[in-house]
């Protein structure tokens, strides 16, 4: 793949939940080898954007292209081929609770390759070593701590050596040391395996540490996409609010307010 082709290309993406509009014509491009952080407060639409990137939701309007394939229009076979090149680490880990850690990591290999059992075992243990979980393959997910679950999920996400890795909230619910270790791990993965990585987070510190570029989402709009310094020095009010943890000023429209109070339930 030539370096000037974006690996993710989202154009004019719209999303609705019922009558509530979640994404307003989002444009989003990521170049190969980049670590992109999607940043935004709760309800900014970052999880919805991620679900669209993963093809878990079909866009109502707009296109989502990954590795040159339009996710919304791809055939089942194309989508399957695409998903083999993606790795995803979910917020809660989403390890399969009925399998051991080792079986979890080995599952994509078992389902998608014809490797023999020995190779699968060695490869999955290798990935567990990468995330510093060597020797933990026989434990069940319920026996792991929060940080270990995230790392095991990361091992499962990278076991097929994906071109593109998604990481949802790597530091949510972790203590600062563990979350710093995970940040370090993400940087190492990019350097060692040349992956393109998209991280969704609301942790400023970790975002600034790992990001090459940052996309700031707010209420379904992309406020800015730029380097760490560009985001830091942005003069947009909302971005400075996010960076300085200032509560937003709520503007009250009197008519609207009265209507909401008096409106009959539908």
């Amino acid at each position: 793949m030539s370096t000037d082709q974006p690996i993710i290309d989202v154009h004019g993406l719209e999303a609705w939940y019922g009558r509530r509009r979640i994404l307003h014509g989002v444009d989003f491009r990521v170049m190969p080898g980049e670590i992109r952080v999607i940043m935004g407060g709760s309800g900014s639409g970052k999880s919805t954007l991620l679900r669209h990137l993963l093809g878990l939701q079909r866009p109502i309007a707009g296109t989502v292209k990954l590795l040159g394939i339009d996710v919304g229009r791809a055939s089942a076979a194309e989508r399957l081929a695409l998903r083999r090149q993606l790795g995803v680490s979910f917020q809660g880990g989403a390890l399969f609770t009925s399998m051991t850690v080792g079986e979890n990591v080995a599952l994509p290999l078992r389902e998608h390759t014809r490797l023999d059992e020995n190779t699968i075992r060695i490869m999955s243990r290798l990935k567990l070593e990468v995330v510093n979980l060597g020797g933990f393959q026989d434990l069940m997910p319920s026996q792991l701590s929060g940080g270990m679950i995230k790392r095991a999920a990361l091992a499962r996400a990278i076991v097929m050596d994906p071109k593109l890795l998604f990481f949802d909230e790597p530091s949510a619910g972790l203590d600062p040391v563990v979350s710093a270790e995970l940040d370090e791990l993400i940087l190492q993965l990019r350097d060692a395996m040349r992956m393109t990585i998209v991280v969704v987070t609301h942790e400023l510190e970790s975002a600034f540490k790992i990001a090459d570029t940052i996309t700031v989402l707010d209420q379904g709009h992309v406020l800015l996409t730029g380097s760490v310094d560009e985001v830091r020095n942005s003069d947009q009010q909302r971005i400075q609010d996010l960076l300085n943890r200032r509560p937003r000023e709520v503007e009250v429209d009197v008519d609207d307010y009265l209507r909401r109070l008096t409106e009959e339930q539908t």
Partner: protein
Amino acid sequence: MNTIARPLERLGRRTVSALAELGYAGMLLLESVYFTLFGWRQGQPVRWRAVAEQMRQVGVDAIPIIAMLSFTIGVMLGIQFIAALGEFGAESQVVLAAAKSITREFGALITGIVVAGRSGSAFAARLGSMVVSQEVDALAVIGIDPVRYLVAPALLAMLVMVPTLTVLADFVAVLGAGLYAGPQLDMPLTAYLLTTLQHLEPRDLWEGLSKSVVFALLITLIGISTGFAVSGGAEGVGRATTRAVVLSISAIVVADMLFSFFLNR
């Protein structure tokens, strides 16, 4: 105006959502059949190991409880038929009455109700908690179709095991009836069982077995579609489990009545 429109609107919404659920269950069924037959062509094979594991869970593990309950039902039928038919001196017909009512009706019904309580709720709870913890999403992004991996094995296992359990229930219930009614009729157990066999026609067994296949479909599809529809965390999982059991037992009883009506016209 509103007093008329409101209930109508609610009725309309309920109807639409019931239809949507029916359509969803139908789609799950079609997709499971598709993956079973052609999944291997797309690199989405239904694994026999998963089917065997499900068969153990829904079938083998249910043998003790189903044997115990159908034995009890058999004894109960023996008591009732002896009492009822004895009133007008038709004790000799007890064997026939017990044989037909067990094979046509009670074997399948008891099996269906026990499996709905054990496995229907288990499907809903397992899938529901997998949805809540994003495990279903994880399967999808790994490139494993959740229907192929989670639904098809359960459906296949149920379609094999529920009829099998029904045959077992039939046998044990007839045994129970014989153990009570045999001595009352001065009949040794072997003679009772042989007479039962003479009275039974293939049609009687088929009626029970075809019902049990329909029960298997209903329990699986209701359990799984309620599980997939879970939202709202642990409380949602609990609600889905209850709903799956209540819905599938109601569906079984209604389907049973319809079957009996049409097969006995």
